[in-house]
């Protein structure tokens, strides 16, 4: 019986979305009524014990959620994700890392989209450096990666970046797509 409670708790905890009594009943092969009483016990236990999260009844099912009154603190979790990047940020950073010095129009040509916002984010995170102005009409700014960029990626220098050749050597699909060239294989 106690084992059943443990299982109910684990199922609700692990499920991607609120778990209904019907679903629990199928998973555990037990009558709904029995499970209902267990779930209710669990709800009460969490409520009584003043924890960081509780068992909420949501959309006809049950789900663990953080206490609503902690929301102001938990928002901090979302900010300061300094170690994560969106795909767009990663792409832009990659272009700059490999093609520096590079101007914004050149970046945007490669990405095919406006990149002002992403570049601002990267500059704010101190990952980019302005390297000067390019000697072409309009004298656009040239960008490169910063020292902090090297630190973040654990590189001693830009030479430590994998070359694209090494990189494509890992990708069998890509290698197959190329014509065979045995003379160069030496």
């Amino acid at each position, binding site marked *: 019986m106690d084992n059943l409670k443990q299982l109910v708790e684990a199922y609700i*905890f*692990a*499920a*991607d*979305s609120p778990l209904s009594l019907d679903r629990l009943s199928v998973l555990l092969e037990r009558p709904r009524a029995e499970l209902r009483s267990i779930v209710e016990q669990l709800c009460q236990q969490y409520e009584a014990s003043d924890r960081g*999260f509780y068992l*909420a009844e949501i959309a006809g099912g049950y*789900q*663990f*959620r*953080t*206490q*609503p009154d902690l*929301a102001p603190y*938990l*928002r901090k*979790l*979302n*900010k300061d*994700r300094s*170690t*994560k*990047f*969106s*795909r*767009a*940020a*990663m*792409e832009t*950073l*990659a*272009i700059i*890392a*490999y093609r520096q010095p590079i101007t914004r129009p050149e970046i945007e040509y*490669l*990405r095919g989209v406006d990149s002002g916002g992403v570049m601002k984010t990267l500059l704010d995170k101190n990952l980019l450096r302005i390297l000067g102005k390019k000697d072409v009409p309009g004298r656009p700014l040239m960008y490169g990666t910063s020292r902090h960029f090297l630190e*973040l*990626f*654990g*590189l001693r220098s830009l030479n*430590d*970046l*994998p*070359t*694209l*050749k090494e*990189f*494509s*050597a890992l*990708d069998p699909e*890509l*290698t197959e797509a*190329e014509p*065979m*060239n*045995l003379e*160069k*294989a*030496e």
Partner: protein
Amino acid sequence: MSIQIQLENFSGPLDLLLHLIKSNEMDICDIRIVEITEQYLAIIEQMKQLDLDVAGEFLLMAATLIHIKSRMLLPVSEELVDEEGEDPREELIKRLLEYQRYKDIAEHFQQMPQLDRDVFCGFFNLSDVSTSETEDEVQIAVGVYQLAEAFHHLLKERPAEVFHEVIQETLSVSDYIERIVERLTHKKRQCLSDFFPEGSQRTEMIVTFLAMLELVKMRLINVEQIQDFSEVWLSLAVPAEELTSANAEERALGYG
């Protein structure tokens, strides 16, 4: 030896060798090389007869086994002892033991509780916490690989600009068969060493050699030597015009 052996069930030639050693109840440290070599070659041969591709690594191992076997049959010469140590099997045994160990660890890894398979963590359920502040796209963990991957991805989508060249090393025995035949068509007699220029890679030399053996077996080339230890000469055994049809059949050898 059972016919059901399929190379794709083995993660490589070392894996296949370990299987043979186990099914023969041999001690890895004391492999009966003649038996194992015969069985190994028989399997490769079967695969070829079934018209299956045999990966280069399996052929390379075949060459290694033949080499060890021949060295074990030779009387021990001082030169060889100095050059490669006492037991020709030594290096192979070391590799097999080492490989066996990682195979065991891999098995252990498979059985360890894995996240999202055996063990789960709670699903991000923040009450009343807006997550819209984060960018709506997938978040990527930082790493040099991810960085290179992002750039690579871009370049793939814009193939017009080529910044890199891909160098592939494909060693196929049938390609080498063709090359040897071609060379011998142009120049009727050539010495063996011409086929192994200085600086050749070991793998390339082995595949060249396998190709020659195959040609001998097909009776397409002659191998001659005027006296012991003198230069070995290769020449075509059939008129060049008959070779075209022979070439077509080489695909059926199973060398991929």
